[in-house]
């Protein structure tokens, strides 16, 4: 009788026709020491009742690398030991009966250099529909330096973006034009002009503004760039508006990108739903054309939000840093959309750091060296307002775009006043932080003091003073801040 969790080493037995446990086929190697050049994936697996977790982990390794459901003799024509992914560790998830963390190592040669599409076709390919699992979630990945170096990385990066915008030492400010659908080009440009003149650095198209009957894309681009230019002249600052170039084909996206460039835009925008290859193509275009590339993560919550199944946003963030976008939405902590402080910190670190040490309390399972790839600017958007400025600066730091859509356009005295309120609140808070004030505890006093010389800020604070979004998060770290877990 063969041990169900032992690799069968006798070649005649191993390759005799028929079905065999994945663990027996060589996809479970508890003694395996991952190489520095291995890609490592951490999956949360929920086996079907009666399915052993080790066999489930081996099956994930198998189905995401070389295996099929039955033994094939053609394995023996290859260096199949090398190409088999190896599940090497399975841990129960704390406080989650029936769920396990499975660590799986993949040899670097399994992946085409510089292709997110190829990476994901393996790692989140067929395996996610595999019947012996109730659910499967890709929690984190360790990307070896040798692999990271095959990607361009962010087209511009935080440092060069700041140099181009001539903006240092404070978060950038933005707003999404609202209503997101229905405005004509001319009316839309009005919102852009008022917001930028009032003190924002950026305005933004929403994810689903492309080219619709009420406003075709060229109209939007022309009016928006008139607004950007006029606001720049009115303030003496570099301004931008994320022109969404998302379209049905690459050819059309390139045409829109070129038009944005010809009008002098500093930034273009794409949606996550265009797909990984399209994102990489636009990142290359952006690098070649001195353009900041903003990515709106439209659609991500369909697979990132539930803890049991899908792909964690931290993994999407890693892929996007490889793929080469400059801006990516990453949560606000305090706003209307999903994200607890600890998990969000993990995302921000992935965006902005040269090196991420393992931090289980933030959901980061591996040390990750970014090999000098540019940094991504996180974008905080959704249900935030000037009265939260001390919280936003404390949680998110200063290399971030704070986007106040409703919090700008919904101001009782109009869009320009809304923008000014946000800018004054921001500058006052950064000033106070640098001056050594305890902004977390004194934030409201600091804002009230700044409002004494800024009526729009006073009005904003009065309008939104009680607005909070205090709901439990669905996606929180599995480990407590000081984990007793050895690695």
């Amino acid at each position, binding site marked *: 009788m063969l041990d169900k969790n032992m690799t069968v080493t006798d070649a005649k037995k191993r390759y005799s026709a028929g079905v065999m446990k994945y663990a027996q086929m060589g996809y479970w190697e508890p003694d395996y020491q991952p190489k520095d050049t291995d890609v490592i994936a951490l999956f949360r697996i929920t086996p079907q009742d009666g399915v052993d977790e080790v066999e489930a982990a081996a099956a994930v390794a198998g189905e995401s690398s070389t295996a099929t459901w039955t033994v094939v003799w053609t394995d023996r024509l290859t260096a199949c030991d090398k190409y088999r992914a190896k599940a090497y560790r399975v841990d129960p998830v704390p406080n989650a009966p029936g769920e396990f963390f499975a660590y799986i190592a993949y040899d670097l040669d399994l992946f085409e250099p510089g292709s997110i599409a190829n990476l994901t076709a393996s790692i989140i390919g067929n395996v996610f529909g595999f019947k012996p699992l109730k659910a499967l979630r890709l929690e984190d990945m360790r990307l070896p330096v040798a692999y990271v170096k095959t990607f361009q990385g962010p087209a511009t990066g935080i*440092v060069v973006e700041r140099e181009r915008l*001539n903006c240092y030492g404070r978060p950038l400010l933005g707003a999404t034009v609202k209503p997101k659908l229905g405005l004509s080009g001319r009316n839309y440009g009005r919102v852009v002009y008022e917001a930028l003149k009032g003190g924002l650095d950026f305005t933004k198209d929403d994810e689903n503004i492309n080219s619709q009957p009420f406003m075709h894309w060229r109209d939007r681009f*022309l009016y928006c760039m008139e607004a950007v230019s006029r606001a*720049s*002249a009115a303030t003496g*600052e570099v301004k931008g508006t994320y022109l969404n170039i998302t379209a049905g084909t690459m050819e059309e996206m390139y045409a829109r990108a070129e038009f944005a460039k010809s009008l002098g835009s500093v930034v273009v925008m794409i949606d996550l739903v265009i797909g990984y290859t399209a994102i990489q193509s636009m990142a290359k275009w952006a690098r070649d054309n001195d353009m900041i590339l903003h990515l709106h993560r439209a659609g991500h919550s369909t697979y990132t939000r539930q803890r049991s199944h899908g792909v964690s946003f931290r993994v999407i963030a890693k892929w996007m840093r490889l793929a080469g976008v400059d801006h990516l939405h990453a949560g606000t902590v305090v706003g209307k959309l999903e994200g607890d402080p600890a998990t969000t910190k993990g995302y921000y670190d992935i965006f902005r750091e*040269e090196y991420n040490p393992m931090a289980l309390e933030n959901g980061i399972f591996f040390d990750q060296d970014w090999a000098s790839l540019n940094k991504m600017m996180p974008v905080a958007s959704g249900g935030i307002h000037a009265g939260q400025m001390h919280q936003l600066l404390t949680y998110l730091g200063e290399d971030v775009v704070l986007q106040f859509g409703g919090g700008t356009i919904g101001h009782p005295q109009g869009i320009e006043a809304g923008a000014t309120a946000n800018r004054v609140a921001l*500058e006052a808070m950064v*000033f106070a932080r*640098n001056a050594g004030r305890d902004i977390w505890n004194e934030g409201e006093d600091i804002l009230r003091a700044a409002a004494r010389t800024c009526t729009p800020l006073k009005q904003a604070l009065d309008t939104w003073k009680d607005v909070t979004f205090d709901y439990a998060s669905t996606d929180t770290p599995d480990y407590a801040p000081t984990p007793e877990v050895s690695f």
Partner: protein
Amino acid sequence: MRLRQGQYSFLPDLSDDDIRVQAQYAIDKGWAVSVEYTDDPHPRNSFWEMWGHPMFDTPDAAALVYEVNECRKAHGAKYIRVLAFDASAGWESIRMSFIVNRPAEEPGFRLVRQEGEGRMIRYTIESYATREPEGARYA
């Protein structure tokens, strides 16, 4: 108009003590502070004139405030800003920038439109002050 460049251009003008406190924050972070001035405030004018080198080895921000005031004596009718440079790997650029002196009158910028074919318009921003030669701008 009021030139809105820099970290604090939407706040009231900074006092010398405000400047000292902000510069000390930078120095305590290990950044080198420096003073620059210009009579060409175009938003894409990267290179203002340097008032000496960045102060790499000065532990006390009072020295920066002294240099700001020396610069004001020579260039008080122009824009003066304070910068902080971070030389650490992965940044190697500016960390802070704020205006500490302005001309009495800020005439602002003219938006020049060059009509092209179709509805294409090329926009250029031109500082009213730079119509005059260097040294003859702002009084």
